[in-house]
């Protein structure tokens, strides 16, 4: 990406505004070069790479299990979705079967992640458009979700809770009650948000017919997730290519047809409700007892009990944590529906305990390329709305 804007008109009347990488509403360190005529954007060019951390490359120097901790830091607003995508990919490579109990818990937690991520989106999108209080309300509720994560995994954000073949730990007693409390509290809070925004005249004026993208364009630009569904394409990987027992759950794909910022807002709000539905079903499905890791000696660490009492357990434990395990040579691709869209992980193995290549197809990265399409010809204030509505996470874009 060059740092100069290729001017569309070459006219001297235009002004180039360098929005970001330090700007209050570029959601991190996105830089957008705007060519302006007055306040009208003639050309917008996103410039990325300010948050590049080399996660994909670092994965190649880690064992398969160690790489999980790196996935947390890709999309730092939805760490469990990243964990899930990576673990599913490696499990596919190894041919591991994950116990149902672990699968349901994974579904439950990733759906909570989705709610948490959408809350951050709603809060930041609203504050971008000037509704300051929404931000604090959304973060207040997200805090409850983070508390659940902390209870389960010991970490609020960088959870690394999903492991290859299952989960890191048995969830503590009482965690489902906590989830239940959240489920009871949250629907009223969504209504509160909608009271403040959905029929607010200013909110409507700021989001309706702003950042419109047609279904054809959205597909052509590779847009996925809620941003695609806001354009009327009912495409959701949880339904299309179910993974982790999603086919056993009953939920709807939320779509809107307008393809503007308001439609995407409605889609995400509806998705929060659908996620709650899935969480409720998962709670009913999770068996009280049962294994949380698959039976795969040499790949999945043995239980503490086994490690302490049996010699095989001790050897496996030692081997897994010193040199890791070596999957057969080959390559897999696994896609999941992350809160931001289609998150795919490609893992190539050369038969050694470290992956030969790990590649993330980050939804934010692909969605961002539609930004110029959304905001060219509109006002600066709309650029902010468009960046917000795409729900990008720079950590995921730059990786």
């Amino acid at each position: 990406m060059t740092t100069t804007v290729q001017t569309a008109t070459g006219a001297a009347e235009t002004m180039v505004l360098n929005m970001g990488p330090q700007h209050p509403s570029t959601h991190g360190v996105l830089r957008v070069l705007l060519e302006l005529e007055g306040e009208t954007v003639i050309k917008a060019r996103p410039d990325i790479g300010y948050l590049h951390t080399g996660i994909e490359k670092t994965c190649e120097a880690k064992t398969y299990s160690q790489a999980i901790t790196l996935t947390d830091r890709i999309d730092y607003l939805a760490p469990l979705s990243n964990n899930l995508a990576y673990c599913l990919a490696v499990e596919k490579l190894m041919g591991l079967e994950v116990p149902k109990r672990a699968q349901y818990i994974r579904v439950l937690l990733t759906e909570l992640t989705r709610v948490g991520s959408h809350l951050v989106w709603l809060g930041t999108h609203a504050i971008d458009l000037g509704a300051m209080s929404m931000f604090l309300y959304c973060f207040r509720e997200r805090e409850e979700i983070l508390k659940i994560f902390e209870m389960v995994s010991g970490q609020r954000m960088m959870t690394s809770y999903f492991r290859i073949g299952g989960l890191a730990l048995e969830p503590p007693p009482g965690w489902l009650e906590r989830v239940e409390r959240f489920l009871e509290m949250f629907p009223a809070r969504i209504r509160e948000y909608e009271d403040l925004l959905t029929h607010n005249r200013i909110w409507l004026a700021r989001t309706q017919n702003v950042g419109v993208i047609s279904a054809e364009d959205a597909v052509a630009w590779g847009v996925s997730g809620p941003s695609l569904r806001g354009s009327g394409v009912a495409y959701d990987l949880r339904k299309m290519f179910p993974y982790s027992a999603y086919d056993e759950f009953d939920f709807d794909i939320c779509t809107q047809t307008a393809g503007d910022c308001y439609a995407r807002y409605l889609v995400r709000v509806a998705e929060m409700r659908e996620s709650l539905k899935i969480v409720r079903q998962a709670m009913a499905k999770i068996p009280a007892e049962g294994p949380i890791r698959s039976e795969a000696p040499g790949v999945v660490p043995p239980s503490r009990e086994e490690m302490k009492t049996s010699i095989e357990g001790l050897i496996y434990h030692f081997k897994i944590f010193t040199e890791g395990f070596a999957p057969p040579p080959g390559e897999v691709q696994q896609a999941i529906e992350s809160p931001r869209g289609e998150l795919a992980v490609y893992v190539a193995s050369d038969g050694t305990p470290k992956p030969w290549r790990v590649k993330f197809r980050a939804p934010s990265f692909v969605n961002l390329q539609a930004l110029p399409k959304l905001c060219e010809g509109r006002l600066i204030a709309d650029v902010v709305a468009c960046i917000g509505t795409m729900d990008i996470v720079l950590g995921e874009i730059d990786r």
Partner: protein
Amino acid sequence: MSDFIAQHPVLAVSVIKVVVLMFLMMTALAYLTWFERKVVARIQSRWGPYRVGPHGLLQPLADGIKFLFKEDPTPGGADKLIYFLAPFLAMALALSAIAVIPFGPKHIEILGHATGLQIADLNIGLLFLFAITSLGVYGVALAGWASNSKYPLLGGLRSSAQMISYELSMTMSVVGVVLMAGTFNLREIITQQEGYWLGFIPRWNLLAPPLPQLIGFFVYFVSAIAETNRVPFDLPEAETELVAGFHTEYASFKFAMFFMAEYANMITVSCLATLLFFGGWLSPFSTTGMFAWTLYIPTAVFAACAVLLFVDGLRYSTTFGRIVLPVLALAVAGLAAVCAMPGVVEFVQGPFWFLSKVFLFLFFYVWLRGTLPRFRYDQLMAFGWKLLLPLALANVVLTSLMVLVSRR
């Protein structure tokens, strides 16, 4: 010295009043920021400032000191003179507007001269006020221009357009009041609103014949919010779009001056709303006959505040707070007692009601800030020119007709 005072009594009295009002105004501005932060915090279910002093009461002081000692860089290529001048202009204009606001009906005696609760009683007070507030746009526009930076430039352009557009609707909206009062003198406009229907409904311009100025008030209030660049019309300093708008490049006390100017403007337009539509210092209650007890409302309010403050102070978490807050409560209780004294009781009515109404408006401002999203530039312009201005014009025409008919 005494000769000088004897020869120029008006000047001496005015200087004293200016100094006192400046002091009060500065304190009010400082505590308005505190009040805003506390109320917005309450709306957003957080605490707001509470570390510096009990309930964060010393926060404005800490902020002031911080502003004074911050580094004050000037951006390269800035037009130094104008860059320097702009915040002074904004601040000076915002403060001079207060000069014509009358705070109460009674006169006080300073250096042996009876004088009103107002620095200058102009017969064209209202015109003066609008003249001064419309100059306020220069501070903002020049700041945006002189900074030699793109965000301030956009902010300055936005605010020039916005303030000039809304100035128009704002001025038109008060024409109705002027027609009804037949004067530009602010004192006379208030005295015109005296009296009660059925003994208890105040004859404020908002409700008074020949045409209740409901439309006028609506247009005035919305324009006033836009005029002072507050949410939902805070585009010139829209943080999430233009970083900080016209004052992006300002730091230290120059920034503080813009900040204070904004709050001073808020107070001015609230004062004006009170004067023009809500009867200024007039009590909402009749004070004669069975309503005589309403004279003691100030005392009751202060007493209630004192009790609350005292109880809260005793339970406060820090020792400092447990000492300061009850002492403050005692001071407020003393104020309550003074307000009940014969002679004083009539005198405090004016300022008390006036300031209470202004306070309500200020609260409304803060409330809006905690609730609404921001308009977009073109929507703002459309709103001003296509809705507010026609409404204001219609109000002028209707009021003229009604005044004409009623004077027949």
